């Protein structure tokens, strides 16, 4: 299998603090990668660089063989990288349906938008995705009236409809109930069939549910280790970085 994203020597510093110093990182097509790490480890910064929100100081990032560093957000999004933010970002004064319609992959120029007419192909696609994320009965409601969890799902739906080849999902389960978290996990596992996905998450139960492939651990901007969920969970270095040296010793004794 070919890798869809290859990153090497990626560095970015904010005011003297090395936020990210990633020697090498790559994910395969249709892989679901979970990134964990303590606060300030550079997880979100990594995603910010991949989607063009933040510029890297140096390094290389190839998406399907093409460099994405230095490109604008729109260009990167057009290439097929979709981002779901930690804080749900949806169009609150539009209906759920319109939110999804705007996201659909189609020409997005001004003239096209002016003379756009809905067709059954797009209609079907929207309903299919709405069903997938469980928002079918909310289509005519304003996105602003959705619950927090539903907004998260709507944002995932937006990224899916954009037809992103690589989805960057930042803390999808934050602020969700256990039941909603579980459903989100199911949803992400389902999306894996058609998309490559990187998920950042803190909730370890949730990580356990979705970590069917590799888990990467970032600590202070560096990649600490990579491996299956169990490998990572029992890794001494990981425990140390989360709980401190003393606790790690106690646990391993």
């Amino acid at each position, binding site marked *: 299998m070919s890798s869809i994203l290859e990153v090497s020597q990626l560095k970015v510093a904010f005011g003297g603090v090395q936020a990210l110093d990633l020697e090498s990182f790559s994910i395969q097509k249709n892989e679901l990668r979970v990134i964990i790490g303590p606060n300030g480890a550079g997880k979100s910064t990594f995603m910010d660089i991949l989607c063009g929100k933040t510029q890297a100081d140096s390094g290389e990032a190839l998406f399907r063989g093409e460099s994405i560093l230095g490109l604008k957000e729109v260009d990167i999004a057009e290439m097929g990288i979709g981002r779901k*933010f930690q804080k749900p970002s949806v169009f609150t004064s539009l209906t759920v349906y319109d939110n999804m319609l705007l996201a659909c992959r189609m020409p997005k120029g001004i003239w096209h938008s002016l*003379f756009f007419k809905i067709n059954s192909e797009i209609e079907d696609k929207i309903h299919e995705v709405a069903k997938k994320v469980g928002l079918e009965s909310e289509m005519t409601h304003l996105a602003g009236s959705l619950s927090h969890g539903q907004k998260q799902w709507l944002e995932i739906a937006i990224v899916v409809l954009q037809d992103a080849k690589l989805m960057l999902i930042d803390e999808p389960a934050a602020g969700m109930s256990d039941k909603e978290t579980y459903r989100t996990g199911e949803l992400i596992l389902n999306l894996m069939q058609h998309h490559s996905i990187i998920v950042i998450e803190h909730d370890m139960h949730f990580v356990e549910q979705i970590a069917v492939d590799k888990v990467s651990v970032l600590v202070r901007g560096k990649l600490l280790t990579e491996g299956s969920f169990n490998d990572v969970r029992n890794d001494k270095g990981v425990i140390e970085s989360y709980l401190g040296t003393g606790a790690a010793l106690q646990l391993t004794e």
Partner: protein
Amino acid sequence: MQIKAVFKNYEYLLFLGVFLILLPIGYALDLVSVNTVSLWGRYFCFAIAAISVDILWGYTGVLCMCQAFFFCLGGYGIAMHMLLADKGTGVYGAVIPDFMVWNQVDTLPLFWEPFYSFPLALLTTLLVPLIFAMLFGYFIFRSRLKGVYFAIITQALALAMWLLFLRNETLLGGTNGLTDFKTLLGFDLTTSTTKLSLYLLSCMVLVLVYWGTKKLVNSKFGKVLVAIRDSESRVRYATYRVQNYKLAVFVLAAVIAAIGGMLYVPQTGIITPGRMEVKSSIEMIVWVALGGRGNLKGAVLGTLFVNFLYSIFTSLLPGSWLYVLGILFVVTVLYLDHGLIGLPAQIKSIISNKRTSKL
């Protein structure tokens, strides 16, 4: 079904009934003076400008503080044409407008030339704001200036343009502006028939602009505008080139405002730099805020309502107007989430809430 549709659109029928039928009939029966008719004609021009503020600020979330400047670009354009078309009828009987004679200018400046013929003047008057907005907007939106910073820079533009137009060297009449128009397309501006025609024309252009912008905001383009207001970055990540959309709506708003100005000046008979002061642009924003931003009906209603009150209060209780406007504005900001246009729905929901709480 038909009747239902008609009732649903009763606001439109009310508007057209009052302004296209009742007011002209009132005038024909001598119940309403031609000056009152003409006054409403001018309000319609303001309403056209208010629509331009609404598509920018209400829908796209771009608070632009120089719409009055674009309004004046339209006004100055038509004023220049009228002065040139009336050449030789001024106090000095000169080929050039009177104010140039006072300023010891003997030949017509080159940039006045296109305003001789009406079609060319019309075209130039629309093209100038279009090109200006395009250049200015291109650089502003490219550097992603937004929110308060955009408001400040457009305010600075309005101030700079006001200072520029105040100068005699600009050759646009300086502080006194342009005035003493006699005819438009050969029609005598002082006759009641011309005044009534201009009123009707303004009303029809307002209806047309309303209809066009309504179509626009209901299209997918309009939804993108609202999406930009809600979450600009999300729109960008959904592969829309936000700055192009903002630029398009900025240019369109500039042209619409200029159309309002073009209709306004023949009806008032004067255009001065005072009209493009920052204050005038803010007034337009107040009309939209009072009527209900993000709602085209609200923009029109707010403009007509505020200007109507203005003419009542300034004639009955001169000096009280600013207090009235201030109170209205505070009440709107505090209690009316969706402006005047949202008031009926707000009352309805309060009543139904009370009912359910009683049950």
